[in-house]
């Protein structure tokens, strides 16, 4: 709007400039949320650890035949977290497991939020029977016990990471759909939507150009919150023995520990690290999500 060059900026440049300004504003407010900053720091750390895991631990860390230690050793200088029933290094396994847990959590959350946004925006935009049917379906999914449905889906499909991602994704979208629909309805009453319609903007144009940018912040907050429950869900499914048995994940490690009799033997060191890893990452995502939420909607005041 206020450019010193003298020539009027193109609409595109103007839009870019505004977007940059709003991102900067967002970051400034986010920085005031202390818990959110801690969460973000933890997440960056975990992401780096997962990305560079091949540098710290070799990919042979999960190999049963080339295990470096004796079975079920308690923590020592050589193995800071001890070893499992095959003599594998637990520290390496926990680091390696972060890759699968984070990846599945992220992908499942993205899938879930994508479905929720699609249904929410369309149900808010098209009224009439389509919206009624969609909201009925959403309500139905909302009261279904999510885990039971996910378990049922995993039992039906083959055991793989894709299965887990799909099972979590298609069972956790209803809350997003509800929120996005409410926001869509609010946005659609604004005058500029009427203007767009009067100028001949079609359904697709209105949904993608006007509604979607307005629900995006909400979607972002929702994604962050859903990642944490997706990570928990992945761990749960793996713990119930429904995960891919060929990959190492935190939930899978806990299942291994239980099957190896670590509980009755009192081998706490086997159980504690994977659980703490799950809890810390899930908590970090929750803190970030709540911080984003309270930046976008200060009235909620959730994190203060």
């Amino acid at each position, binding site marked *: 709007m206020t450019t010193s060059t003298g020539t009027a900026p193109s609409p595109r440049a103007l839009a870019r400039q505004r977007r940059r300004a709003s991102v900067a504003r967002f970051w400034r407010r986010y920085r005031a949320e202390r818990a959110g900053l801690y969460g973000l720091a933890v997440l960056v750390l975990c992401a780096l650890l997962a990305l560079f895991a091949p540098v710290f631990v070799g990919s042979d860390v999960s190999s049963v035949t080339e295990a470096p230690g004796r079975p079920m050793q308690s923590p020592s200088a050589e193995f800071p977290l001890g070893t499992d029933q095959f003599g594998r290094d637990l520290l390496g396994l926990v680091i390696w497991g972060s890759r699968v847990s984070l990846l599945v959590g992220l992908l499942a959350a993205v899938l879930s939020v994508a479905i929720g946004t699609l249904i929410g925006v369309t149900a808010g935009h098209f009224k009439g029977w389509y919206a009624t049917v969609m909201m*009925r379906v959403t*309500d*139905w999914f*909302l*009261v*279904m*016990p*999510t*885990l*039971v449905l996910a*378990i*049922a*889906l995993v*039992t*039906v*499909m*083959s055991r793989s990471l894709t299965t887990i991602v799909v099972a979590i994704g298609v069972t956790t979208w209803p809350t997003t759909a509800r929120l996005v629909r409410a926001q869509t309805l609010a946005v659609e009453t604004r005058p500029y939507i009427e203007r767009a319609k009067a100028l001949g903007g079609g359904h697709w144009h209105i949904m993608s150009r006007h509604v979607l940018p307005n629900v995006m912040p909400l979607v972002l907050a929702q994604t962050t919150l859903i990642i*944490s429950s997706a990570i*928990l869900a992945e*761990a*749960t499914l793996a*713990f*119930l*023995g*429904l995960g891919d048995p060929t990959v190492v994940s935190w*939930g899978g490690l*806990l299942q291994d*520990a*239980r099957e190896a009799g670590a*509980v*009755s*033997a*009192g081998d*706490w060191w086997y*159980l*504690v690290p*994977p*659980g703490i890893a*799950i*809890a*810390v990452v*899930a*908590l970090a995502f*929750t*803190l970030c999500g*709540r911080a984003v939420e309270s930046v976008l909607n200060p009235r*909620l*005041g*959730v994190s*203060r």
Partner: protein
Amino acid sequence: MTADATPALVEERQTAAGPRVRKRSAYPRYLAGKVAGAAVSLLAVLVTSFFLFRLIPGDPVKTMTGGRQVSAEQLAAYREEFGLDLPLWRQFTDYCGKALTGDFGTSYQFRTPVVDKITEALPNTLLLTGTAFVLYTALGIFLGTRSAWRRGGLGDRVNTGLALTLYSIPSFWLGLLLIIVLSVGIGPLPGLFPTGGMESGGEEGFAYVLDVAHHLVLPVVTLVAVEYGQTLLVTRSALLDEMGSDYLTTARAKGLRDDLVRRRHAVPNALLPTVTLIFINLGRTVAGVILVETVFSWPGLGGLFYQALSVPDLPLVQGLFFVFAAAVILMNTLADLVYPLLDPRVAR
């Protein structure tokens, strides 16, 4: 819920305008709508539970025989016994007809009717879930109220932080840790509680009750710990929403004590949205129950579900799937029905 001066005035005015007559006629229609909705949901669950489990690749009869060498005649006999020789639509109509009379077929692994297994395990699950539900709801509402009322204070920060942390902990992991620390015992610490199950056996009368209670402690603690956070956060934000309201300023201006303003004015109103959310969140509790029962070998529906999954014992999984979903739908409908009695604005 409570009678105080200001709302009474408003109510009087509304009665004069005559909406009271309309309210009486609105509730039955509201009730019918909710019950019909629940019936449709139940039907959807029935259809889903049938078709979902038919998608499983592989032959259920082969699973049943566990890879043993079986003659073709025997396989055919099994198929006939479980009705698997009929065309899919016949299987479906049979299934629906039987399910409506409570017959979910015969369990592959136990060779007993699924209903018997479910009715056997149901009381145990109700005992565990009921106890935990009452405790975590009470604890969540109590702490959530305190937290919101002293928003931003040390108590609030500790409360919210703890709730969020426990909320992020996998329930099964917490259960396993409690077993290691309190049942198996670490170092000099002796095991204080049983590691699993519901009874030691051989006890009768009052001793039996005590024994079951002793077994109940750890599973209930686990469930309460992972579930109360949600209630706390919901109550807290509902109360925070109310706290800026004018009627609270009025109540304070009347000279009411802070405590009375909270208990008589703010909390009853904040509880309205809380009630709905507590019941919507029951779906999450079902997940918690399945895991906690599995970890503590509690002889309930959740433990049974885990056993059925590992086979997989289709009729049993199917039946339990239906029971879990139906229970949550039922509780939600119940909440919908009670809600207008708490908040008369809803049914209008």
